[in-house]
Every structure is written in C-alpha cells, then in structure tokens.
C-alpha cells in the first residue's frame, strides 16, 4: 500500500520528461569556436577550432586553415594544424607558467580573434573514490571540494581491443538552485581492472564564471528549476565563442581493482 501510494503520487503528480518533437527556429549565423587551453604540463598543448552548426546531433565543422599563435609576453608559439585530427592545432614547445599573461591570437577567414588568460595556483587531487555498481562495474565518484575542473579517462581492454571513456567533472564555488537540483547525469562507469587517469585543472575566477554559464546550459538545464537561457560567456573577441584558459594541472593514474 505504501509503495503504491508513493508511486501514485510520484507518477501522477510529479514532473516527467520525454522526447519533444517540436522543431527549432535555427539560423545560419556561423561563428568561430575556440576550445582549449594550455597547462604547465610538458608535452603537446592543443587548441581546437570549429564552427557553429544548426542541428542538434550534427558534428561540428572543423576549422583547418587558421593561423593560431599564443604569446607569453616574450615569445610567440605557433600552433600547427594536426591533419590526422581536423580542427586540432598543437605545439610541443610551450609550457604554461603561473603569473604570466597569455594571449591567444587566431587569424581565420580574414578576421583576427584574441583572448587573454592567466593561471591560478594548482592544488592536489583528492584521494580517488570509486563505488561498485549493482552490475559489478565500477563508478567514479567526484569528491573534489576545491573549485577546479577534473578530466577523468578510463582505459581498459576487451578481447585485446582498447576501450576508453572520458568525461569532465567540475567543482564550482557557487550557490545555484539549478546546480543543486540538476538533472540526473549519466554515471561514469568502467570495468574492474581499468586504469583511471585523472587530470585536475586550476580555475581562475573568470574561468570559473565561464564554467558556471557553461554548466548552466549543458549540465544543470532541464532539472525542473531552470533559469532563463542565456549564451555561455566567452573571453574571445570578435564574437567568437568558447573559452581559452591557462591552468596548473595535477595528474594521477590508478588501476581500479
């Protein structure tokens, strides 16, 4: 009886969600998208460039013929296009340092775009927390409390074939009802024995503000407590969208048994 009543109340009088068949009023306003930043890690730094698109589910058109340079107040670092990954520009010489101001310069289609960024101090990763699910898989539990962005990548093999999952987890210092009552998120699961790589990025207040607006649209929207939709903030000039960041990074790798 109790269960029946609860189910009755929840099913009949509480909000539900389903696929909507209402179309969108799209336009053809094409904008440059900048996705990426630089870190204090040695190795390859990446900036991805693409264009906006009209339809949900469409692959973003890559930008392959742009000039991408990052200036660190002293030197210019040229990022070259990686033909194997259309839209990705890389540089192996640049290592980001705390305290410096970095300028991203992009020349594309006759327009020049700029973004300025600095890094905040980095902090250490917290101990890894995983839980076993009912199906016997492992699930990553994000327990970070310091404002940061954490990239988590799980790698494992199935019949000799490499498998991986990758996602971002965010910790922001904001009070927001859309965050508190955000919609359910796909669990980040992987099999036992997988190797979990974590990369924690420091956030400047500006980067955090960008992520608040970004998460408002992609993670927290649709939870039932939505606020008025708005365009995600950007530090790019000339109407380009996306964000260019500089972060200090802490990493670790763990085999999860």
């Amino acid at each position: 009886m109790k269960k029946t009543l609860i189910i009755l109340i929840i099913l009949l009088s509480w909000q539900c969600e389903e696929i909507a068949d209402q179309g969108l009023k799209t336009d053809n306003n094409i904008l440059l998208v900048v996705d990426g930043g630089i870190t204090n890690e040695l190795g390859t730094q990446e900036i991805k460039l693409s264009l906006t698109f009209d339809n949900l589910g469409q692959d973003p058109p890559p930008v392959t013929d742009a000039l991408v340079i990052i200036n660190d107040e002293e030197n210019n670092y040229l990022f070259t296009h990686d033909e194997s990954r259309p839209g990705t520009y890389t540089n192996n010489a640049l290592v980001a340092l705390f305290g410096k101001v970095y300028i991203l310069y992009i020349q594309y289609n006759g327009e020049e775009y700029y973004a300025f960024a600095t890094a905040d101090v980095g902090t250490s990763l917290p101990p890894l927390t995983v839980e076993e699910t009912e199906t016997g898989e492992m699930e990553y539990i994000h327990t970070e409390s310091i404002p940061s962005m954490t990239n988590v990548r799980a790698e494992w093999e199935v019949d000799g074939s490499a498998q991986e999952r990758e996602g971002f987890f965010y910790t922001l210092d904001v009070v927001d009802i859309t965050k508190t009552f955000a919609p359910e998120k796909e669990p980040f699961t992987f099999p036992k024995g997988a190797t979990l790589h974590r990369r924690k990025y420091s956030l400047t207040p500006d980067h955090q503000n960008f992520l608040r607006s970004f998460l408002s649209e992609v993670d927290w929207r649709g939870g039932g407590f939505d606020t008025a939709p708005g365009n995600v903030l950007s530090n790019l000039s000339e109407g380009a969208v996306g964000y260019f960041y500089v972060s200090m990074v802490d990493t670790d790798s763990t085999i999860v048994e």
Partner: protein
Amino acid sequence: MLLIAPQAISQNVLDKELTLQLNDVTLEEALDAISNETDISFSYSTRSIPVDHKVSIDARNQKLSEVLDQLFLGLQIEYVWLENKLILRKSKNAVVDQKYTISGYVLDLNDGETLIGATILVEELGIGTIANAYGFYSITLPAGNYTLEYSYIGYQNQIKPISLQGNMNIDVNLEFSSSLLQEVVVTVSDSVQTVDKVHSNITQLSNTTILQKPSVLGEPDVIKSLDILPGIQLFNDGSTFFNVRGGNRDQNQILVDEAPIYNPAHLLGLFSSFTPEAIKDIKIYKGNAGADFGGRISSVMDIHTKDGNMKNFHMNGRLGLVTTQLSLEGPIAKEKSSFFLSGRRSYIDAFLSNEDFDQFYFFDITGKINLRLNDNNRLFLSIFSSNDQYIDSEGLAWKNIAGTIRWNHTFNDRLFANTTFYSSKYEYKLISAPGQVWSNHIANASLKTDFSFYRNPQSTHKFGFKLSGHNFNPGNLEGNNDAPFVPKRNATEFSLYYSNERQLSPRWLLTYGLRLSTWTNFGRTIEYTIDEDYLVTDTTTYEDRSSYNDYANLEPRIKLTYIVNDKNFLAFNYARSAQYINLISNSISPFNNLEVWLPASINIKPQTADQISLGWTHKRKKWQLNLEGYYKEMQNQIDYANQAELLLNPHFEAEIRSGRGTAYGFEAVLSKQTGKLTGSVAYVLSKSTREIEGINDGESYAALSDRPVQFSVNALFQKSQRSSFSGTLMILSGSPVTTPTSFYQYAGRTVPIYTEKNNDRLPTYHRLDLGWSYRLNKVERKFNHFLSISFFNFYGQKNSVLRSFNKIVLDDDTIVVPTEINNPEELKSTHRFVYQVVPSISYSFNL
C-alpha cells in the same frame, strides 16, 4: 424626497379611489395608467420630472392622493390642480428634510459571518448601498416610510419595511440557500445600481466555486482556481505563479486579512497554501482597485478569512490523497465572540522512510478570534502560517507567517473606521550541503487606518493612511557572523489616500481617488554605484537608521460608470499605481525557486503602471456578459543580463536591466450564476511585451507572461441535492521560451546559442478536468459528509513546462545528461511536463 399637498386642488379629485397594480414600470407609464383609470390628465415637463424612474404600485381602492404620495415618495414632486389637470412640477419650496441614517451589519443567519458586498436596496427610491469588507453598511435618507431589501448572492433576499423617524441600527441575518434553489430565490436586485454593481475590473470568487472545481489530487486550490478567470493566467502546471493582464508575477498583491503573503505555495507550487474552507471571500482586482489599495501594479487578491461561528460549534474536515484538513469554529461567548481555526498537513512523509528524507511535509494554519466588544467596536485577531520542509542532506524549506489585529469602530452611523496592525514574513532556505544553508527573507510591519464616511446614498468618502517598515535579506549564508556578504536592506513606506464614490445622476456614477505613496531607504546597508556599462565603480556604506534615498508617487484612480438601462452598463477605468518591492528571479520554472525580494533603492527604480480599460456589462435574469478592453503601460520593468548571477552576488544589481512594458487585450466572459447549471465561458485575446535596453538589442520581445489566447469553460451541474458534476476546459497559448538557433561543441559537450529572447513558444496548453461530488447522507443534517471524485487533466495531455536540449536517452529509456565526451549518444530535444491524468478521491464532512 418631498411631498406637498397643494391647497388649490379639488379635494374630490384627490379622494377618487382607484385600484391599480403595476410592477417595475417607468413613472411615465404609471401616470398614463392612472390617467386611464381616473380620466384625470397629468401635465408635466420631462426635464423636471424623472419620467424614466422605475416605480411599482399595489393599490386596492386607495385614494388618488395616497397613490400619488406613494408614487412620488422621495422624488421631490409636487402636484397642483389647475384647469382640470394635475400639474406636476419639481418642488420649489422644498423644506430641508430631516435626514436619518440606517446602519448595521449584514450577517449570515446560521453562523453570524458578515456578508461582504451584500446589497441594501431602498425600493421606493431605487437607490442602495453595499456592505463593506466588514459587512457594515450605512445609508442616509430623509424621514419617511421605506422598504429595504437586503440581498446577497447565494442567500434568500430579506424585505424590511421601516418607518425612518430617527437614526436606526439594523443588523440583518440572511439565510443561505442551497444551490439547487438558487434559480428561484437567489437574485441580486437588478434595480440596484451602485458603483460596485458593475464588476468591471473586479472578480469575486466564492469558496464554493473553489471547493466544487476539480483539482489536482482532490486538493481544492484557491490560486489554481483563478485559471477560469479571464485575464488571469497561471504560469504553468505545477505553479502558483500567475500573471494578470500581461504583468509579471511579482506584481500581484495577495492579502490575507490585509496582511501580504509573498509565496502562497506548497510542494514547490503543486498546491497553494490557502485552505478554501477557511476563506469567506476573495476579490480580485485586475486593474483599478481603488485608492485604498496600493503597492502592486497588476492586481490585488483580497482574501478575507472566516470570522467564526457566533452561534454554534461547527467542525468540518477533508481527507485527501495528500493532506488532511480540519476546521473548528464556534462561539467563545454566544453572539459576542467567536473563534475559527483551520489546519492542514500533508502526510507524504508517513510513507517515506527516514533514510529518504529527514523532513518532507507541509502544513498551513489559519486562525481568527472575533470579538464584538459592543455595538460600535469589534476586534479581530488573525493568524496565517504556511510551512514547507523538504530536507535530507540537501533541500529546500520556506514559510510564510502573517498576523493581523483589526479594530472596527463606528464613530457614528455614517462614519466607520478600521485600524489594522499587521506583521508578515516570508523566508526561504536552500540547503546545498550539510551545514551550508543559504537563506533570504522579506519582513514587514504595518499600521493602517481606513475611514468610510457615508455622506448620503449618492456619496461615500473613503480616506486613510498606511505606515510600513520593511526589512529585506537578499540571501546570505547562515552562520556567518561577519557582515552579510550581500547587503540587507531596510525601508519605510507611507501612503495617504482619499476617494469618493459619487452618483452624479441616476445614470452616471463616478469614483475618483488619489493615493500618495512615499518610500524611504535607510541603513545600515551598503549601496553600490553602477555605471552605464553595468560595472560597479563605488561603494557607499550607510549607517544605522540613516535615510539615504526617497521616492514619491501620486496615483490617481478613476472609475466612471454609465447606466444605459437596467440591463446594460458601461464602465471606464483609469488607474496609476506604483510598486516599491521587486521579486528578483530569472527563473522560468513553474516551481518555487529561491524567491528573493528586494526594495526599490538607488539602483532599482519603483515600478509604475498606467492602465485604462473600457467595459460593457449586459445583465439578464439568468446570465451576464462582460466585455472589456484594456491597455497598460509599465515603467521600470525588470529583466536580467545574459547568464545573470543573482545569488550570493553582492553586485547582483549590476545584473538587473530595466525598461518599459506594454500590455493590451480584450476579455469576454459569459457567466450564469443561477439554476442547476452554473458556470462561465471566457475568451481573451492579449499581448504583452517588454522593451529593455541591453536585452534583445533593445528590441521589443514577448514577455514571459505573454499568452495571446485564453479560452476556458467552467461548469457545475447540480443534478440533485445530493449529486453534482463539474468540469473545466482550458486552452491557453504556450508560454514564450528562448530556444537555440545554433550550437557549438566545447569540452566534448554541445552548447546552445541563442539569438533572440523568447523567440519561440511552448505548445498550446490545453486540459479538461472533470469531477463528481456526492452527498453520502440523504438530507441535510447536522452531520453531512461527501465523497468527491475528480480527474484532473482527464485526457492526459502532456503540457510542456520546460524544454531542454542537453540530454541523451540511455538503453533503459532513462533521460540523462551525458558524461562521456568522446563518443556520446546523440542529444535529444526533451520537454518536461507535470501531469498526466490525475484521478483522485477525497472525503469531507461537516457537523
């Protein structure tokens, strides 16, 4: 009124006897009829004799002089016998008549409740008055013999012949009539034409309507019942937010026994926090509410709770799927004092384990003590409290509490005063993590006095003042002993008003008034200087009690009514109003959502509105048609910057944008209030826009309240004394939404781009509700009990309340936000809806 028996007339003529029965005919028709009966000719000028005045005669073998005396009673007509004619003329040597006042209260016979808005008609003069918000009435007439007719919809009329030779105090008890009998006995006299009778701008909602309307989970709902009224639109399913004539949701003043209630929502808005059983009367003003109301620019919802049964102990209760409600009332000292107490609590938590929630419930309490101190003094003590708690490690909690002390005093038969002291507080808490509690509140205390001076039946003066103190906490973390991160605010509000209801002629009625409202901000607080680019450039701290900012507004109100004839009325309204408190929220959710209230101050100017409306009312015996058009201009309307951060942001005022709003529309409602089948059909065509610098490139855009078409049918069929059926059909344009016009990919996620605010609409909202109520006992007894069955959203329409574009569908059909960034599932457009079909059953009783 003047009657003169002239000297130079033939006594024989006046002694002539005649038998004549005429009902509700014009004076001219009556004179023609007398002329036919007696062969006496009348001579008169239509400019000096009110030939269209309605009269009735019931004479059996009465002398002509007696018939004429009766006919001209109160009309100041004298008659002279000249050249074989009776010459009628306006009295030249009218002596100043001695006038006396009849005053008192109109009450319910059964429980002694005052009947707000009851009509008192002086049959002989065709004039009347209306009982005020406390059931008090007063009418001043020349000495003479009169027949007073007291009426109130739903009650049997009462006729009282009086001989007015001095001031009289008459309390009248009207008997409630069951709805089955209404067709026969319940009418409000059509011949009474007072200013209030033309219901332009005003709607009265009875608790009977609310209780009989099908509702969600069988919970009769005061706010949700508003959706049948033209021009009032509930924001969406699951919401207690409503918009009136294109206004914002914070522009509606909800008063319970004169104290403001800021968030009347239970369970995030699924139910409203007013118990219908505790309510005596609800009036909703959609525009010109009169100079005695002020503080909001779109509407006033004036709720009066029950005073309590003065005669007998009484109890009623209701058992529903979600709540239990119980009301008790009765005399403390019979006919001298009474109490009323009503409580309602949800019992969902009884079915949840403690592991799910520490607290998961809501309750509300309405209470009143009514003391009749003597004939001239009454005291009312009221309290209203509603409380919602949904907490585990995270959660929400909010509460409203309001207390009122009111003192009615009649200085004399013509001067009535009500003095009210009230205090009200609304508080909201968000527990975002254990120990991390964000809370905000708005609180105020007010003293007001309203005087009504009933000068004569043609003129009533009202005047009064109100002094209020306000305190605002815009939201801070609790437990922080330092100065609040977001500055708290204080203000005082003072207002004065005067208005006059005046009958200019038998056809023209005028109510004019003026309200002066002032607002003063004072410390201790911090104000920020914000430049034209919305950047904070300076900070100023104001010390305790130091005033630093003032606003004042003059608010004229005019209502002009033209009585075309006894069936047709035209009414013109103009009202200017000012609002000094604002709801700061950029939520588009129908649910309760961290409501933060803030005062007008240096950076937020007071909202003002000018509204004009023109209405036509056509009354028939069984039905009434109202047509009304309106136009409203609103200034200093608030909207928000892109991705505004309003919580825990001391500079949140830099996120506010303001500009003008415009709303106009046409409303039509056909209603039938008597007979077995009662109800209404309403249709509205309207538009509401905003034009705000910094939003939508300064171009006009649809307001969130813009719902161009509203159509509703509300019907109650009283099949028998035991069984009734009810139904509501609602069709409403979908609310405006902002949808993406393109997308981009960032960090493996698809991000929407918006180019125009409110560029799209949710699908049209429509819903059919059906209900059946059955009395379980055969006839009306001391103990009556009822079973109600209802189907809310009978055909299960999934009305959208929110849309989103950021989710995937998992293999088990669960809709979630994706985590995987490299090869995510394809994103889908989804929508949320609140209800499918909601069947319910409830049991209620009274004894």
